[in-house]
């Protein structure tokens, strides 16, 4: 009995190590590449710790091209799209969870179908729409698109979240003399917050890293995003500029890591909701 427990513990530890290496090694590799010299980054055998670490790339990347602009655009699109997705997805989820109306299932299914479409198939139409409304090369357009793409996932995740919160809680608030909106704000919203935080993280990560739409629908430092900028370091007279790409990726990790640390408590609760009840 004791022996089998030890061996299952060992398997558990090995599995955790595999997952850790799988997720952390690429990040480690990228971050260290940002500190390596142009020679060392392509050296064989590769070095795991930079031999002569340098921060020159960080400075060069910041001043060489309008990367600060791209960076800001990415963050704006991330925040904008998350706000749009939450503002539309949460009321949709709440409405479908709490009210019965004709065609509710159809509404939910229709929302889900938006997710079935491969993005590549809609890029050209979107470009034409954007041109008509003078939205090409604007952060607003990206925010709307990213927001729209994430409404389905927010709606569906929050739907099950709201359904788990007993309706009596809200009713009790109303009976105690508060309006229905107040009941939502004071009971349901706080209870659903961990879920919203968790799902917002996913939306943010998606919006921050989106490449396809951004590469086609933005053309100048006014709206171009970080992933597009990274791609532009590929090819050209200098060949693949691994160091610059690694630096930009490292910059890109920072906001997500900060947000993650700010919300980590809610995140864990949000992701385990339902599983522990």
């Amino acid at each position, binding site marked *: 009995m004791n022996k089998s427990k030890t061996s299952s513990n060992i398997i558990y530890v090995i599995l955790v190590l595999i997952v850790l290496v799988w997720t952390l090694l690429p990040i480690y590799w990228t971050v260290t590449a940002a500190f390596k010299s142009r020679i060392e980054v392509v050296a064989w055998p590769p070095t795991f710790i930079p031999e002569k670490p340098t921060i020159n790339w960080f400075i060069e990347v910041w001043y060489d091209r309008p990367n600060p602009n791209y960076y800001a655009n990415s963050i704006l699109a991330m925040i904008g799209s998350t706000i749009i997705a939450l503002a539309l997805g949460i009321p949709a989820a709440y409405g479908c969870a709490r009210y*019965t109306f004709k065609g509710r299932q159809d509404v939910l299914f229709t929302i889900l179908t938006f997710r079935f479409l491969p993005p590549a198939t809609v890029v050209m139409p979107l470009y034409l729409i954007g041109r008509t409304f003078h939205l090409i090369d604007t952060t607003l357009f990206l925010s709307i698109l990213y927001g729209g793409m994430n409404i389905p996932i927010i709606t569906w995740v929050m739907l099950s979240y709201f359904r788990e919160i*007993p309706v*009596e*809680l809200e*009713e*009790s608030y*109303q*009976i*105690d*003399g*508060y*309006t*229905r909106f107040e009941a939502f704000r004071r*009971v349901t919203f*706080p209870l659903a917050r961990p879920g919203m935080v968790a799902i917002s993280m996913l939306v943010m990560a998606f919006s921050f890293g989106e490449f396809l739409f951004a590469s086609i629908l933005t053309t100048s430092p006014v709206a171009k995003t970080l992933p597009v900028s990274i791609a532009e370091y590929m090819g050209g007279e200098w060949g693949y500029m691994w160091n610059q790409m690694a630096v930009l990726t490292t910059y890109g990790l920072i906001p997500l890591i900060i947000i993650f640390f700010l919300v980590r408590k809610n995140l864990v609760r949000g992701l385990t909701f339902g599983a522990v009840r």
Partner: protein
Amino acid sequence: MSKITLKNITHIYDKRVKAVDNLSMEVDDGKLVALLGPSGCGKTTLMRIIAGLIYPTSGDVYFDEDRFTDIEPERRNVAMVFQFPVVYATMSVYENLAFPLRAKKLGEEEIKRKVKEMAEFLELTPYLEMKAGKQNAAIKQMTSLGRAIIRDARCVLLDEPLTNIDPHSRLILREKILRYRAEKKQTIVYVTHDQSEALTLGDKIAVMNNGILLQYDTSRNVYERPASSFVAYFIGNPGMNLIECAFKKVGSKIVFESDGIKVSLPYELAKEVEKETSGKVVLGIRPEHIELSKRKVEEGMLGTCVLFEDIGITKVLNLQLNGTKVRAKNPEFEVEVGEKLYIRFPEERLRIFNSKGEIIL
């Protein structure tokens, strides 16, 4: 403290399920009415209509003389306790009790005094500063009751408040409800599927089934003169024996007969049954009213005891009279399974229902 009047209330869910069917009733100011019926009979729906949580498909709700049918729950000043203890988990018990008072924008001093009083009455004082969400179901339900009765609501609605708590706390909570009612003369509607709760608590009892109000009367009348065979069977433990019989006039008597059963009533008493054209009626007799004897008695029917249950306070006998099964209840009668007995239905205790289940006698 108001009188509640329901006029022709009908509620249909999703255009298909009729939960309440043309129901009218009045709850007098200061009375406790127990709404009794099996699960799914529409009693909770009716309660929610009174509270304003759902609007009836048709019909009207009045408090005193004012129509409240379309008024939002927060403006009705009705208090309600739900079946599952609802507390605001992140708040302390104190804040829970103070909550409806804050909605009314009372002063902090007054809130403090009222909460203290209420906590003492409900024995919640030791828990006041603790988080409500961390308490057991009984304390939670007590808190939830306190939150309902701390303000002077028009009426208090209790939706099976005792169902989800342990038996000991149930007694305490029940006593608190009765004391509160006696002191405040509050109008209370009490939903339950437990008939002993309904019979002991209610000034009047409303028995519902399939969304229809079957009988609305005092406990005594509901018990002794059930309006229909459903009420007769539903009330009582075990419920009334219902035996389908053919009847015919023999001399100055009417004789009711079924397999193993033969009862006669004076014609003058039972002549109403003659209106029943099908020739059949349902005879009802409560198990506790059946007379049992081991010796032959006049008009006694012979039966065999097939099951004998001693439940302490009383004894329940299952009797077989040829093809008919009857249950009898008697606190003293001792008998062996398989023993033959003489059984008599005293005529003043007999009830007769027509084929639709409506009472004739």
